[in-house]
């Protein structure tokens, strides 16, 4: 471990600092609030020569990710970033990047989806592409953004799957905090050069990359039996599930070199003896740590279990930490419209059938930047406890700080 520097920086600047330390070779992006300062910083470094990379300006997010896909296919380490409608606009290529098994790293400065138009924070954007086959990591603060972005390259390149590093727009992207920046030597020791891509690009032995694959396996021209669509998808799923091991391993490797780790799949606060557990992803988890201190002062044994890795979903780790508790209250900053919060629904499924499973309550909060204070979380916890005492097992999602009726 050698000394880096400590600087006061925004979440976007922390992401950019990590991308520079990762020695990316190609950056392509299209501006959208609140992500833009990440790539503005990177383009300034490319222009000044501080970052020896290609910065490709494009006319849309769809093209930004397409540039990353093509550059990653030929072996480059690449980066892009986006938010909300920008992510939605690139959705086709979000699926392509994952299905083609490209180790792309993309930062998402989480922002509400339009309509109505809104540039402020919630997590609806990245949650809406949770099924596309990327690893999704959610960060609590700017230090975690820097460290996670560096770790994301290692995870992506070990598994050949793309990784989204998600952090709350404005709350983190535009808020300054002291951030310790690892030395170049430490970053290089942690993150080796990108291994050879799965794609073979060789003029002397040319390939069709990403050709049509039909339903059933079929023999290629040499007689070799090749995957059908389902075989390729099953291997992709295996790689994503392997991330349940790789994400914590990489976090431990990072801690060994840099001296700082984040807990891998989940993190916790005052959880050991907690009867009521608040679950959240991103900076909302930090709010929850303040809320459980208040709850404890009021005599409620409360703790926090934070989701760092949302895809793959750490079902076994969550079961291990939550079975036997009395209640779990999940705060989602997104909604599967017509059902409930995505983390809440996934957690219910993970706990289903466990004999000693806690009651799971869902709450949605902070949509479109609506303020969420620790007091709001405490109030929600008290409502959940009251419902628990009343024996309520099912209730509608609790909308926190909603003012439809005053």
């Amino acid at each position, binding site marked *: 471990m050698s000394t880096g520097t400590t600087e006061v920086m925004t979440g976007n600047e922390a992401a950019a600092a990590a991308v520079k330390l990762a020695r990316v070779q190609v950056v392509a992006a299209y501006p959208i609030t609140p992500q833009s300062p990440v790539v503005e910083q990177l383009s300034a470094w490319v222009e000044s020569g501080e970052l020896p990379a290609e910065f490709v300006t494009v006319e849309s997010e769809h093209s930004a990710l397409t540039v990353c896909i093509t550059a990653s296919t030929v072996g480059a380490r690449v980066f892009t970033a986006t938010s909300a409608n920008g992510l939605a606009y690139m959705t086709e290529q979000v699926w392509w990047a994952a299905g*083609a*098994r490209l180790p792309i790293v993309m930062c998402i400065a989480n922002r509400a989806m339009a309509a109505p138009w809104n540039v402020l924070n919630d997590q609806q954007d990245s949650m809406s592409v949770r099924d596309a086959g990327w690893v999704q990591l959610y960060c609590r603060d700017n230090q975690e953004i820097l460290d996670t972005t560096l770790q994301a390259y290692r995870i992506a390149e070990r598994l*050949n799957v793309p990784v989204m590093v998600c952090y709350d727009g404005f709350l983190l992207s535009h808020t300054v905090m002291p951030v310790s920046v690892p030395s170049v030597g430490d970053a290089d020791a942690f993150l080796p050069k990108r291994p050879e891509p*799965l*794609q*073979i690009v060789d003029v002397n*032995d*040319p*390939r*069709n*990359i*990403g*050709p*049509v*694959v*039909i339903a059933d*396996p*079929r*023999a*290629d*021209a*040499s007689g*070799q*039996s*090749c*995957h*059908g669509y389902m*075989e*390729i998808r099953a*291997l*992709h799923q295996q*790689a994503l599930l392997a991330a349940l091991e790789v994400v914590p391993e990489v976090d431990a490797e990072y801690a060994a070199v840099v001296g700082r780790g984040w807990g891998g799949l989940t993190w916790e606060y005052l959880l050991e003896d907690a009867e009521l557990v608040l679950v959240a992803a991103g900076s909302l988890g930090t709010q929850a740590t303040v809320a459980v201190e208040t709850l404890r002062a009021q005599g409620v044994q409360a703790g926090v279990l934070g989701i760092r890795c949302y895809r793959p979903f750490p079902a076994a780790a969550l079961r291990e930490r939550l079975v036997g508790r009395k209640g779990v209250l999940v705060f989602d900053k997104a909604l599967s419209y017509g059902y409930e919060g995505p983390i809440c629904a996934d957690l219910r499924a993970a706990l289903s059938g466990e004999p000693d499973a806690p009651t799971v309550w869902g709450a949605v909060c902070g949509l479109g930047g609506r303020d969420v204070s620790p007091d709001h979380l405490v109030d929600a916890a008290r409502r959940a406890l009251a419902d628990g005492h009343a024996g309520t097992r099912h209730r509608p999602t609790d909308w926190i700080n909603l003012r439809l009726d005053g």
Partner: protein
Amino acid sequence: MGTRECGSPIAMSRPSVGEAGLTGDWRNSRPVMDAAKCLAAKSGKVTCQLCWAYCPDACITQGAGPAIDLTYCKGCGICAEECPAGAIAMVPEAEHGTCEIDAAAEVAR
């Protein structure tokens, strides 16, 4: 036997004849070349070859005139559209009886 031993977890193949499947069995119109009109055939030289250049399935072989491999021709009609001499006519397969593909190739697959 399973497909795991093909060695690649992604969709990738070597460019080779038939790699995209037996595309000839999709065809409902067949390109029929008239040697009396084809610029290459008339001059006896490997000239023009626009049909070869435009065929999206690479099933035309260069020559004077070019030859079309009906095992893989999917009948899109692009060659007929691009031919500057109007030497290629798209004739409905129904007029030929059955769609002629290489039966041996079909059995092999």
